[in-house]
């Protein structure tokens, strides 16, 4: 019983984001008059998966009490790389896909190296590296363009059995085969330990440096996968800095809505996935309810503000004001 209560207390944010998502999506789906519900789900899934992957990329450094302000730009950079490499013969396509994923990891490696070996604050280090990544993206795609293997793209953005979006399956596969093993490993535990009490973790013999390093590389990997999916969705690469910035900011919001603490040490990528879905459903809801286009940005902003303010419920439970500072 106490085990269940502990789990509930710990997963409060995750459960809340799932509930909010289900309610919102039900509202959206219920008010959307269509003959083809599967198509609605497919388009919702394809846009949701992109932000979900970027939010996952943001989550891992946040767990170590860090932050990665370059995830959006890694996403854009890998999108541009994919638009140049993932095309041609099947062998070239495979090699290109591997190259895209590796370039995402490499970007994460650079972030990790600067944060761990360089001992710079993650927020400022990744701010600076994001300029480098958008530079690389611009180098590859000064103007939007490029191409991607059509069959692969159609498959990855399509459905199996004409119902289940492949993007969602891809997301589940990534969680099950990359995140869960990482979470169970010594490195993954080290990330949580470093995030909740770095000094204590160090004294207990946790290899903090290696864990943090792994966190940033994994972040780059997730962002790279997002860039790949973006290319499958749009068939082009576009080095758009505003779009990258927007993805970074939304990823932070998704992480918070998903119940991961920005102070590190608690949460996980599954919550962030639902956080991302919540954010995306807000936008879709505005369309469904015929909100005047002019009011949409304001409504989006207010909902974002309210969503992140949910975390403030903690303040009401506190009896001693000193607890606020912990």
């Amino acid at each position, binding site marked *: 019983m106490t085990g269940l209560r502990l789990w509930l207390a710990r997963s409060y944010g995750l459960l809340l984001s799932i509930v909010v998502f289900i309610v919102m999506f039900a509202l959206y789906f219920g008010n959307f008059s269509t003959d083809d519900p599967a198509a609605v789900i497919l388009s919702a899934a394809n846009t949701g998966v992109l932000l979900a992957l970027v939010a996952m990329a943001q989550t891992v450094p946040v767990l170590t009490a860090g932050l990665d302000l370059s995830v959006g730009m890694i996403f854009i950079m890998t999108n541009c790389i994919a638009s140049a490499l993932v095309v041609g013969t099947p062998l070239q396509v495979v090699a290109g896909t591997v190259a895209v994923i590796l370039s995402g990891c490499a970007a994460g490696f650079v972030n990790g190296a600067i944060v761990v070996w360089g001992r710079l604050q993650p927020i400022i280090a990744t701010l600076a590296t994001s300029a480098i990544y958008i530079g690389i993206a611009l180098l590859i795609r000064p103007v939007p363009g490029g191409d991607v293997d059509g069959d692969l793209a159609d498959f990855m953005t399509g459905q199996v059995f004409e119902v289940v979006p492949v993007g969602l399956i891809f997301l589940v596969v990534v969680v099950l085969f990359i995140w869960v093993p990482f979470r169970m490993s010594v490195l993954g535990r080290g990330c949580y330990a470093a995030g909740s009490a770095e000094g204590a973790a160090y004294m207990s013999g946790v290899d*903090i440096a290696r864990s943090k390093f792994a966190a940033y590389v994994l972040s780059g990997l997730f962002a790279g996968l997002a860039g790949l999916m973006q290319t499958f969705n749009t068939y082009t690469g576009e080095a758009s800095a505003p779009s990258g910035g927007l993805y970074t900011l939304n990823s932070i919001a998704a992480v918070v809505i998903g119940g991961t603490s920005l102070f590190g040490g608690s949460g996980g990528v599954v919550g962030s996935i639902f956080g991302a879905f919540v954010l995306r459903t807000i936008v879709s809801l505005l369309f469904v309810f015929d909100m005047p286009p002019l009011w949409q940005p304001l409504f989006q902003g207010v909902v974002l503000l309210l969503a*992140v*303010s949910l975390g403030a419920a903690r303040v009401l439970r506190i009896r001693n004001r000193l607890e606020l500072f912990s």
Partner: protein
Amino acid sequence: MQAILKSVDRPVLIAFGFIIVLLLAGSLYSQNFLSPEYLLQQLKIASFLGIIASGAMLVILLGHIDLSIPWVVTVGGMMSTAAGGWWGPTGEALALPFGMACGLVFGLVNGLGIAYLRIPSMIFTLGINAVAQGLMVLHTGGFAPQDHATQFMHWLAVESTVFGIPNAAFVWLIVGILIVFMLRRTPLGRYIYAFGNRESATYLSGVNTRAVLIACFALSGMLSAMAGVLLAGYSNKSFQAMGDPYLLPAIAAVVLGGTNILGGRGTYLGTVAGVILIVLLQSILAVMQMQEAFRQMIYGVVIVAMLLVYGRGAKVHG
């Protein structure tokens, strides 16, 4: 001489060293780089960033961050130009204070949310930024408001009166003097540094930490909006997203100036050095007429490299 050297932080000295290196590098590339006209032009551009960075620094000294800068800058610009359209000559006269007041309101909301709801500033200011954006979209969309800067705003941002020194630089100077006075000579200044070092200890010492926090965010909002008013005067009109290019340079300038991003440590002189550094770097990259791609890459690499020289944190020891 030694006493003066001792009173200046090492990071500040290194930052000024980098400025000299940048100036020399620029002069190798172009003869005009060291001409007074060119440097004064750079000073004018630096003033806008300097005013924004002043507010950002106050918030960073607390160990917080203000991500609402982009759209609060835009709010300042748009509200100041709209005032003339709404209230005629009275509005034009009040353009600057009205723009600043609007920024102050956003800053106050930031401060209240962070102080009372205890939401991390990074995410709360992000939300306020989105709300400000929504309000400005609504503002421009429905009513076609006036977006021309008043003559006074144009004069303040573009013209020079004394010795060819731009008026904008004087505005920055006044802001700077006030902030240095506040940080060094008033209790609030002491509280800001104390808060940045350890919030709980400051609270237990009897300081109203909430008020300190709200004051810093309010000032940051007001200064961002003030820079927005000047920017509107500079380009003679206000437009959406006019503040977008200022968030990252402002934070980078504060940190390059030796202010600890975790709070509690930093000097205003350092922020001035950081601002000049960023502006010179941007202008050299622009003068070299390099591709945007390489400009971005060099910008990022140089900032990382400079920080690696003097911005490193301590090793973990238990």
